[in-house]
């Protein structure tokens, strides 16, 4: 068992609080991704788990053992660094054999394990080379190889593929996920790339400014963001935000923005009620709509369709991104490549009421998906 538990972990650099009271539970054999923009504290968190940074306050345990004061060498972890950190004076074979040599593994076993790892990573033909003779992608494989030759309790990965080119990165995403399945071990992976996180993680911990924002499955992070930060960080292109007013029109709940009125659907209404939020008259809210949920039409088919004007189109092969001016707001919509429009054309926008998100404009928190136990400890599952 190698679950990783962070309890009220704080990291301060002088007067700067890089990680604020972080509570996080990573289950045994889980692939957890720490996701956030640069400076959000995700790398500090990983380095604290590895033991490369001291913990200012709080507690970290790996496999049920508190490791606050344990040297990294005694934590039984393996780590892949952003810069790969291969030993320049050792060959690829020796780089990968090093963790085994340190543990005084017998020679034939080292040979067998290194060759097995090299086989998995398809680097058998470079074993005699030095790191300086390898390309970025090859170095990255060797760095992973060095981590997988032994069976540590936890694999820690600090943006290991962020410096590869886009094609190789997309290939490696699949490889890493496959590796996780094959090794069946706990992975904690740091990334600033939401695509990576969505593609690989069992659960994603979204961080911002040293604070955990949401800790949930990729599906829930995408569909039930707890605040505007998570909603805006995940998804490409990101969610559209429209400042609106939640109010009553007759006996119907409506959202008003920029001269448009959107009826609150029964489902949305019941969701709001279920979340325990009381309906507030004239509450300033932010309406969120993902580009892929918005429907674009050239003809008005419903009374609720909103008239807009094409700003620009970006065809991307299999689909296109259309920028539409809706009143004073510019929104992005994902449309089929066959949707034939030109800039300044008049279009109609339909926001499916069941797919929209509502955030309190003051707190930025979701009205329909309130944050509960953010640490994910109680849920204890995926």
């Amino acid at each position, binding site marked *: 068992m190698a679950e990783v538990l962070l309890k009220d972990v704080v990291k301060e650099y002088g007067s700067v609080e890089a990680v604020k009271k972080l509570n996080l539970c990573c289950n045994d054999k889980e692939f957890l991704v720490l996701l956030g923009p640069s400076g959000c504290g995700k790398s500090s968190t990983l380095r604290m788990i590895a033991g490369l940074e001291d913990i200012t306050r709080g507690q970290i345990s790996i496999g049920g053992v508190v490791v606050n004061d344990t040297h990294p*060498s005694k934590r039984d972890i393996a*780590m892949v660094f952003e810069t790969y*950190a291969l030993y*320049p004076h050792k060959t690829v074979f020796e780089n990968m054999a090093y963790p085994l040599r340190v*543990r005084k593994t017998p020679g034939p076993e080292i040979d067998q394990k290194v060759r097995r790892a090299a086989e998995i990573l398809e680097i058998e033909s470079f074993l005699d080379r030095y790191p*300086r003779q390898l390309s970025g992608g090859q170095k990255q494989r060797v760095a992973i190889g060095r981590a997988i030759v032994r069976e540590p309790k936890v694999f820690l990965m600090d943006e290991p593929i962020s410096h590869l080119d886009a094609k190789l990165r997309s290939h490696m995403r699949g490889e890493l996920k496959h590796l996780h399945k094959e090794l069946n071990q706990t992975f904690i992976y740091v990334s600033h790339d939401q695509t990576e996180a969505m593609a690989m993680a069992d659960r994603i911990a979204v961080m911002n400014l040293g604070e955990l924002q949401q800790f949930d499955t990729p599906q829930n992070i995408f569909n039930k963001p707890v605040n505007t930060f998570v909603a805006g960080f995940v998804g490409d292109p990101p969610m559209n935000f429209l400042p609106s007013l939640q109010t009553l029109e007759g006996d119907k709940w409506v959202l008003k923005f920029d001269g448009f009125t959107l009826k609150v659907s029964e489902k949305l209404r019941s969701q709001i009620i279920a979340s325990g939020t009381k309906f507030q008259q004239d509450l300033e809210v932010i309406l969120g709509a993902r580009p892929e949920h918005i429907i674009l039409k050239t003809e008005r088919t419903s009374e609720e369709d909103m008239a807009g004007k094409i700003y620009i189109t970006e065809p991307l092969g299999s689909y296109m991104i259309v920028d539409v001016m809706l009143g004073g707001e510019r929104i992005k919509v994902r449309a089929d490549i066959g949707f034939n429009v030109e800039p300044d054309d008049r279009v109609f926008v339909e926001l499916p009421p069941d797919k929209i998100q509502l955030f309190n404009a003051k707190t930025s928190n979701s009205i329909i998906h309130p944050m509960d136990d953010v640490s994910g400890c109680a849920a204890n599952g995926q």
Partner: protein
Amino acid sequence: MHSSRLKQVRKGLVIGLFVLWTVVPIIFMISSSFKGTGDIFTLPAIGDWWGLMKFLFFFSASLTQFKEIFLHGPFLAHLLHSFVATALSVIISVPVGLAAAYALSRARIPGKKHLYFWVISTRMAPPIAVMVPLYVMWQTFGILHSMVGLVLAYVTFNLPFSIWLMRGFIDAIPSELEEAAYVDGKSRIGAFIDVVFPLIRPGVGATVILCSMFAWNDYLFALILGGGRTKTLPIGIGELASATSILWGQIMAGGLVMIIPMVVLGLIIRKSLVTGLTMGAMRG
């Protein structure tokens, strides 16, 4: 085509002049040390090129001068003093310097910058500037005219230099390499031995050579702080030129003996002076 040939000629000329400037005195020293006292000054006439070749290379060699310095005089004792003083000062300065350089490079110490500047500032003043205070201090401590005093004087000057030189090399080693070694199961010292040291070996080699040269070639400290019981080679050889006579042959032979250890050291360490090992091990 024409200009590139001209460039070649010019380059050759510059190199030739440089070689003449640096190598001729050494050839003169070597050939003189194998001559009898009289032969050293039988200079060929101007324009007698064959005479010059004979003077520098094709003379009848003898070991008179070497026999003289080794058999009749304190030369061997001076050689031993030089060896001991140099070896001890290097054995202290380099490892201690390495530890200090590592600490200054890696540890988070408040005021580290100032500490580092203070260390190198001690090496900025010319040795002669501190000679009088050193003399008084050494006298107070009772280590004047002793090997301990001499070694300590060399360490005083070599240590800051070795800290300064090696810190640059350690700074160039990314700390992630050490962190990788920690994660792979090594302690801080283990990571230093396995990862940092092999990578900074060229720097350590250069430091050994430069510190050795400082102590080996030193005249000033040995003259003022060393005294009679710890005379080193430079002092011993210097004394061959006295008010009554200048024993050129012995001076040349002594000089030749004196440069040999440094040349040998240089050749041994040259193997590890291969830089550029870290290139390409990190990304990019």
